[in-house]
């Protein structure tokens, strides 16, 4: 019996509801007749549009060029004509320009055999260039440009490379399906990242609610004859947070305000590693991704391979539409995702899921005063006292909140999920962070 690992402090067990999709093989979504491709799908500067209204674009063609180092290229997900460039809102409230492409013409890649690139002779910087050119970003939701994350600063050494297959967000099973269906690709992607980072150890962290994924990757590791370790993790939210994952796997703690590399670790999400494989081996830019479409109000939940830019409404239609009136439509998981009201909002590189939740699933209740139950303190994986922070922020005591660790909060939502008084703790904390920055509270 292998010892199952997890992080020691806090954490919760939110209702999982992954059953609707986890055993269904992923399928390709219908290619939309109109793609809305935002130029800002990542953390950092938005890409610069390279096309104008009326231009013809090919599948996978560069249509937005990264502006600066922390930015990412944007490619056309479909062949067609640029109908317009319009300003849209993303679910997180960011306003960005988006290239609207009407499907037209011939697919360069779709349905054709792909030639494989031999990367065995390449060194790290060469591979990083390929990753950057193909617009790869972190696909777990953070969408940090991958070429930046994998650029090892001079004098730094990477000891642990960790593949994040925790997928701790409830409802979502896209990474799960990816691990079950494409373990060999993941492993090759991992070997590519290993080439770049030169780590001492490579580990694959997967929660034990995905035994088939654990088996598939263990199998792939054995077949490839590499010295990687598959680490089964005890189910606990937020284990997919990279800092919690590192803590679970090797007991190291990323210092407050620091990065995983400060303690010699790099964590990469399963989806990202597979995208790296496609970029390096198949020279394929990031133009599609696996998306879980689920929730009690979705008629036929599924995991779909979706072209970036597909309007969310079309995916919902493809899954049979709404079976009942949804209370919320969420992009991402229910713990950290954002609600939307406009079904024309497109799937972006960071969209891991689309959920239509019923009133019952949301489990809303009237907000009451804090009853001091301490559940939020118990749930916080980084040892904060959310109820205390909330009260401090409520009283404009930003500097005291910062002293109590406000800026360390990663907004995992464990406290907000568990709060019986339904106090919007995370919302308050976000406001607190914003105000602390605005009023220039020293951190």
């Amino acid at each position, binding site marked *: 019996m292998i010892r199952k690992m997890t992080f020691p*402090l806090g954490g919760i067990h*939110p*209702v999982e509801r992954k059953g609707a999709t986890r055993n269904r093989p992923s399928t390709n979504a219908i290619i939309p007749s109109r793609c809305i491709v935002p130029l800002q799908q990542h953390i950092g500067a938005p890409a610069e549009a390279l096309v104008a209204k009326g231009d013809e674009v090919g599948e996978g063609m560069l249509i937005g060029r990264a502006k600066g180092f922390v930015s990412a290229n944007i490619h056309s997900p479909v062949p067609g004509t640029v109908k317009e460039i319009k300003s849209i809102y993303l679910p997180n409230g960011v306003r960005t320009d988006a290239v609207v492409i009407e499907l037209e013409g011939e697919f360069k890649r779709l349905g054709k055999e792909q030639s494989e690139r031999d990367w065995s002779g390449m060194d790290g910087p060469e591979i990083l260039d390929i990753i950057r050119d193909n617009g790869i970003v972190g696909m777990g939701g953070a969408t940090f440009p991958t070429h930046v994350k994998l650029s090892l600063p001079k004098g730094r050494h990477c000891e642990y490379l960790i593949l994040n297959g925790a997928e701790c967000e*409830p409802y979502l099973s896209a990474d799960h399906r990816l691990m079950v269906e494409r373990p060999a690709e993941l492993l090759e992607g991992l070997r590519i990242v290993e080439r770049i980072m030169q780590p001492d150890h490579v580990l694959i962290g997967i929660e034990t609610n995905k035994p088939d994924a654990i088996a598939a990757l263990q199998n792939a590791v054995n077949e490839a004859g590499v010295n990687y370790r598959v680490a089964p993790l005890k189910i606990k939210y937020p284990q997919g947070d990279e*800092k919690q994952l590192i*803590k679970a796997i090797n007991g190291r*703690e*990323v*210092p*407050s305000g*620091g990065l995983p590399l*400060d303690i010699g670790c790099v964590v990469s999400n399963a989806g990202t590693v597979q995208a790296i494989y496609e970029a390096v081996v198949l020279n394929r830019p990031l133009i599609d991704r696996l998306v879980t479409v689920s929730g009690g109000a979705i008629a036929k939940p599924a995991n779909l391979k979706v072209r970036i830019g597909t309007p969310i409404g079309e995916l919902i239609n493809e899954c049979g539409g709404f079976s009942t*009136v*949804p*209370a*919320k439509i*969420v992009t991402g998981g*229910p*713990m*950290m*995702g*954002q*609600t*939307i*009201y*406009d079904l024309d909002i497109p799937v972006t590189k960071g969209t891991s899921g689309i959920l239509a*939740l019923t009133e019952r*699933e*949301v*489990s809303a*209740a*009237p907000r*009451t*005063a*804090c*009853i*001091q*139950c*301490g559940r939020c*303190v*118990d749930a*916080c*994986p*980084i*040892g904060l*006292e959310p109820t205390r922070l909330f009260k401090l922020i409520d009283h404009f005591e930003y500097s005291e909140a910062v002293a109590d*660790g406000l800026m*360390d909060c990663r907004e995992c*939502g464990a406290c*907000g*999920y*568990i*709060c*019986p*008084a*339904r106090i*919007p703790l*995370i*919302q308050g904390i*976000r406001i607190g962070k914003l105000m602390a920055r605005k009023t220039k509270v020293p951190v």
Partner: protein
Amino acid sequence: MNEQIQITSSPQYHDHLSTARIMWTVSACLIPAAAWGVYVFGLRALWVVIASIVAAVVSEYLAGLLLKRFTLADGSAVLTGLLVGMNMPPAVPFYIPVIASIFAILVVKWTFGGLGSNWMNPALAGRVFVFFSWTGPMTTWTMPRTLPVLDGFTSATYLGVVKTGVTESVGATGGPLALLERVSFPHSNLDTIATDWLNSVILEPLGISLPFGYVDPFIGNIPGSIGEISALLLLLGSVYLFARKIITWEIPASYFLSFGLLTWIFGGLIHGGGAFTGDVLFNVLSGGFMLAVFFMATDMATTPITRKGMLIYGAGVGFLTFLIRTYGSFPEGVSLAIILMNIFVPLIDRATRPARFGVQKAQEAES
């Protein structure tokens, strides 16, 4: 798009527990013990409980009216009223529980800001307030109908008999049960039968013998407050609360351990015995302990928010309960012990703040 669609900040869904569900569930778990009290003490007990609840609810409503906050649906006022009622002697004049409830809701709860802001357990504060104001009626106990005595016969409680016995006797008392026997405290037939059965079937093969007089307080065949007498039903209610994770183990466990250990080690001294001769079972089953350990010492608003803090708090309540029961001038100590410990809660919270992730390491890296 649908007009009803909700736009909210994450997390987008929640645990099923809500404040109202917690309060109503705790109330529901108290019902069996309260119903038992009504059964053994008669319908009058029911009116006492109802009067307490109505007074609490009306007070809550008026406070809400004044502050334009309507909080009746959260169930906390009903729970407070129910607890006040369950802490009353069955024959108490009705104005006493009414005043206790009003005091609990208006003075203890709302002057500090209502639900969650009160630092003292409202129901217990209400009880203590009327206890010291009307000590006579608050210490007049009715015999349960399940004991072989005449109707309307009044008596002291188990703890009252012991307190009087210890005060009056010279030399060794022989322990609490001997003191009960000295005043020919009645036992029910059930006590005799069940004790005999336990002894012959389970305990004798193990080499232990249970004296008569423990089954009655376990079932609830003793005089006392309406809702505190049946250890069994309170225990059952608490099992559900544990199962639904509404209460956690920390406070009950540390309260039980600290009170039990202290009673075992030092509880025999006042009876003229040596150390380690205290009667833990007797002390746990009698008085308000069972009601307090699961339902009142675990009140969320007036207990620490960290698990470590809860352990300290429970131990403190146990220590104070032991001290007051054993050496105080009143037989009963749990109410005062809990209220006294409530005072220390902010201090405990401050002393037990959780260790922050990555902070220790950051300091090491700097030095």
